[in-house]
């Protein structure tokens, strides 16, 4: 693969040299090749220029320890505008927003509300880019933010409409590393990636193991009941964490190859399933040990416990800060939104304490990063069982020193996806 890439790079270099002889600068020549629509297929070098050695459109790659201020495209809406009328459309994952909360918003502002869904973030970005959807506010993950900003798909927000951002949200996410100054986004939900397991089935004391991630590589007794999240980033990230590599945005082929080798080693050990059904299979007994997001154990306990079974059996382990991935997603206003005022009001509405709490505890299982929502508070209110305190994210878990899957270069994405494809091919 690398040899082929080198050959293509050599060919491209020769083309660039010829263009240079005609007085065109190297960068302009590369841009011309990209604009011709032939570039990316010709050479990874071109994609490195399109995304820069940094990110899409040459924007720098944001990291928790290396925050990025995104360029502003267009103007935010003016202060003091009246909300629009008509139908307000939210663009979101399926089952990731409580309809009752959205209906309440509709009642408050006297508008019809509807949800348009996408299956994954790739699909969301594609639909926004192709203008296949007519939506007013969209869910977006930080790792795609530079991409949609470079593509001018979002409009800057006017924080004057969103006082709850300063009032209610954790300080760490008022000025997040991926969007310094919250120019485009407000946070929606926050979660960690850890290990969900059945306390009554798993003999090992996972939290007290020297390397809890290694439980997957010692799961011979749980063959057929072990699972990994169906995501290139999460699956390969798991193997990296097992080796103690906490740079989850690495593009070092050696590290990725090692992670692939480790994942492949799991197959003869425990024949893991690769899926995203851990939010219900732990309580149903179909899996006993599953890489999980922190919302999953809560959903197991809230919605899927079989009658007569104690919720005590559902456990969740997360590593300390800097050793376990912590992620969040956001709301943003598409550039093409026809109801930007309502979109701003929605962002403020969903950050209202009661609305956020209801959405979290009555439906999604994914925690809003609000000051009022604390582990002890959730336990005291009976919303979260005491033994699942680990499933609640705390403000200290995010920010500098934390690890988060962030934007990769085009080549980086290819490497991660190819490694994952090899793993799930079972070869």
């Amino acid at each position: 693969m690398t040899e082929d890439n080198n050959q293509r790079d050599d060919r491209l270099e020769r083309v660039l040299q010829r263009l240079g002889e005609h007085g065109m600068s190297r960068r302009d020549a590369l841009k011309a090749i990209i604009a011709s629509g032939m570039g990316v297929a010709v050479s990874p070098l071109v994609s490195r220029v399109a995304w820069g050695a940094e990110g899409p459109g040459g924007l720098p790659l944001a990291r928790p320890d290396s925050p990025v201020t995104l360029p502003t495209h267009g103007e935010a809406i003016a202060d003091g505008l009246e909300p629009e009328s008509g139908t307000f459309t939210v663009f979101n994952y399926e089952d990731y927003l409580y309809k009752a909360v959205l209906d309440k918003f509709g009642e408050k502002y006297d508008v019809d509300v509807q949800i348009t869904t996408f299956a994954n973030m790739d699909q969301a970005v594609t639909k926004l880019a192709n203008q296949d959807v007519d939506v007013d506010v969209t869910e977006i993950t930080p790792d795609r933010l530079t991409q949609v900003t470079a593509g001018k798909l979002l409009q800057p927000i006017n924080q004057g409409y969103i006082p709850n951002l300063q009032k209610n949200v954790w300080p760490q996410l008022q000025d997040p590393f991926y969007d310094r100054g919250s120019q485009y986004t407000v946070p929606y939900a926050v979660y960690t990636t850890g290990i969900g397991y059945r306390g009554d089935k798993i003999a090992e004391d996972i939290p007290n193991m020297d390397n809890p991630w290694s439980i997957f590589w010692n799961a011979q007794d749980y063959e057929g009941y072990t699972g990994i999240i169906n995501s290139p980033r999460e699956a390969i990230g798991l193997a990296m964490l097992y080796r103690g590599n906490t740079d989850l945005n690495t593009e070092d082929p050696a590290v990725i190859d090692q992670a692939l080798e480790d994942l492949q080693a799991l197959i003869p050990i425990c024949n893991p399933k690769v899926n995203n059904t851990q939010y219900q299979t732990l309580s149903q007994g179909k899996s006993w040990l599953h890489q999980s997001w922190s919302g999953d154990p809560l959903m197991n306990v809230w919605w899927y416990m079989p009658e007569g079974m104690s919720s005590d059996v559902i456990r969740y382990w997360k590593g300390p800060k800097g050793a376990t991935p912590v992620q969040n997603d956001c709301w943003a206003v598409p550039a093409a939104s026809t109801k930007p005022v309502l979109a701003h009001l929605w962002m403020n509405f969903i950050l209202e304490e009661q609305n956020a709490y209801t959405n979290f505890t009555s439906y999604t299982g994914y925690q809003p990063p609000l000051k009022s929502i604390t582990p002890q508070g959730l336990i005291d209110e009976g919303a979260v069982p005491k033994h699942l305190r680990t499933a609640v994210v705390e403000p200290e878990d995010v920010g500098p020193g934390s690890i988060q899957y962030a934007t990769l270069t085009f080549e980086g994405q290819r490497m991660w996806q190819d490694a994952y494809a090899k793993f799930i091919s079972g070869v």
Partner: protein
Amino acid sequence: MYPRWLWQALAAPGVVWLVLLFVVPFYAVIGVAFGTLDPIFQNPIPIWNPFDWNFDNTMQILAQFAPGERYWQVFARTAVYIFFAVTISLLIAYPVAYYISRHARRTKVILLVLLVLPFWVSYLMRMLAWVGLLAPDGLINGFLVWSGIDTDPPNWLGGHPGTVIFGLIYGYIPYMILPLVAALDRIDKNLLEASRDLGMTARQTFFRVTLPLSKMGILGGCVIVTLPMFGDYYTPMIMSGSPTTSMLGNQIYLYFHGGPQPDVGATLTIVLAAFLAVLMAYYLYSVAKAQRELQ
């Protein structure tokens, strides 16, 4: 009496249907496979002009179909699963179709309706129903324990090839039965009577008359179930979820579902389509040959 063009015009709806729903979409897949990507959004940008196609990716992917390489192994696994699924489907479907065609009489219509009935429920739902039945605490294991057949029943959903093959058989077997019923129905009863009159036993009549005359139904049924099975990705995903049981469709799904390489997914689709075209060509050749023999 009627002008010749009238008969040709009757084919127009079918031709339009084929062009709109097969030729154009398939050409789009080819355009994506040999095309490029949007440098910012990474959306596929199909290249429509064949002179501009880029085959670098294709050659790399084809190289991975060499024996021992990644796609070869996934393809071989897929082919083995489908071989077993089609063979077992045929062994189940033929007696069922034979009974419906020869012995059902009054109940024939009811049985055919019952065969079609599963189509009223989506494939996905039918598979999910089996997930419930085959779960560790599902009805199947409950029965095995209750009856004493197996006090420690297996975890059927734990990544077993057998479960995936079972899912394929269950999902596609009606497609096998229906063409077989049609083929058996078309056999002239006089031929069977002649066979018996000439001294053949019922068994000999079946093997020397009925079975050869139903060959086209067998081939048709096999082709009809084989084609969708090769593209299937949800059966292994739902019934197993293990990498060890993933099929070629799962690789295509991964590359199309997200990420920066939809062109790889499109190329795999074309490779698979080319292989299936060979199977289809054999089927069409057999049909043509059989028709010539009948004339």
